[in-house]
């Protein structure tokens, strides 16, 4: 999971969702055990290569999950955490829910990729609940996933519809997990978070200086 070799890069255009997913996929070390959260992170699986030999975990009790099932391959007993029918790869295994979450909680997965409402410079994550009055709360596996891997990466848009930064000094949404996020992929920039320092690895369609201006956290440019 080391990132010490990252050098600052920049591109003219913001990243598309597929480009983000492709970058995440390329950053996953060969042979890693990975959980991809529901939503944008699921798309990462489309860009993993066979040579990477990545094993996917689904928290409802499986390692070695294959692509989404279609046609005759659909089996109602074989679904992912998003309740979508999936397939089984050679070397797969099944286990019950307590064993599956023990695997996460025990820190055995290498990478977990999640969506987010907000991430703080300290790596605090908010992605489970808007906290809006009247909203019915539902947490699922969000809090387990947040702390359930050696590295937790986030994929999100960097700005809200009204232009506020989702990379914040302190969360205003309810916390999912504290100090758990180590990397954030957005359409505009990729950030590394470590020991309270936020390093910008790359910018996309925005300059480092503009980022510094628009984001409420102190930023360091990668060397």
């Amino acid at each position, binding site marked *: 999971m080391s990132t010490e070799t990252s050098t600052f890069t920049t591109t003219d255009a913001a990243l598309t969702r597929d480009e983000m997913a492709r970058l995440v996929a390329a950053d996953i070390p060969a042979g890693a055990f990975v959980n991809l959260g529901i939503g944008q992170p699921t798309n990462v699986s489309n860009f993993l290569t066979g040579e990477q030999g990545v094993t996917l975990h689904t928290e*409802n009790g499986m390692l070695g999950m294959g692509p989404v099932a279609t046609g005759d391959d659909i089996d109602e007993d074989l679904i992912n955490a998003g309740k979508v029918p999936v397939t089984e790869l050679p070397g797969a295994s099944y286990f019950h829910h307590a064993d599956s979450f023990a695997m996460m*909680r025990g820190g055995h997965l290498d990478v977990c990729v999640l969506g987010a409402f907000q991430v703080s410079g300290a790596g605090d994550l908010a992605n489970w609940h808007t906290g809006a009055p009247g909203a019915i709360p539902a947490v699922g596996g969000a809090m387990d996933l947040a702390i359930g891997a050696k590295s937790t990466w986030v994929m999100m848009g960097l700005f809200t519809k009204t232009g506020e930064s989702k990379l914040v000094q302190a969360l205003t949404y309810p916390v999912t997990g504290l100090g758990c996020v180590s990397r954030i992929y957005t359409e505009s920039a990729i950030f590394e978070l470590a020991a309270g320092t936020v390093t910008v690895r790359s910018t996309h369609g925005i300059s480092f200086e503009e980022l510094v201006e628009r984001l409420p956290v102190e930023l360091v440019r990668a060397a």
Partner: protein
Amino acid sequence: MAPRIATTAAEAVANIHDSSTILIGGFGNAGQPMELIDALMDCGATDLTVINNNAGQADAGLALLIKERRVSKIICSFPRQSDSWHFDEAYRAGEIELELVPQGNLAERIRAAGAGIGGFFTPTGYGTLLAEGKETRVIDGKGYVLESPLHADFALIKAFKADTHGNLVYRKTARNFGPIMASAAKSAIVQVDEIVETGKLDPEVVVTPGIYVNTLVALGGNNS
């Protein structure tokens, strides 16, 4: 005791009484004991506390129990879904109590009940709304929340095959909550596709030993 073998889902759930706490297995449709839930609906028991990952979907199963106000409390991780309208309505009307538990803590609390553990410190949920009012502790520099076991009177689960001793095997991700729920209930009621003679299941591959199973009912299935 070797399990009681019921011939219908109705007979399998006949002992469930008002004010019971009931673990219900399944994640999505996988491992969901549909027929047992329907029979629970028919048997009339009310004022139930239900422990399930979700809070019912659409117009079937657990959702109908909630619609009929037979569930006074639900302990789950993910009640709100696009089609959880019966729960949403009961909840907004203040007619159902909700205890929201992170999914892994839910699983571990159920496992703890079966394993005789009085409580455990989990890192999941530390520093969040769901730890409010709970004891917390920093151990080796990391924050943990104390969580308690979730015992139940009954478990309704679905497995793939059983032998007449009650040993169970499951299919793929339909295993999910089944094994831990069977262990955490005073009485585990299990629907299976097929009951085979004792001796037909390899002792190495039994997932739930028969000691955890009280009632079996074979209801066929699509996958056998």
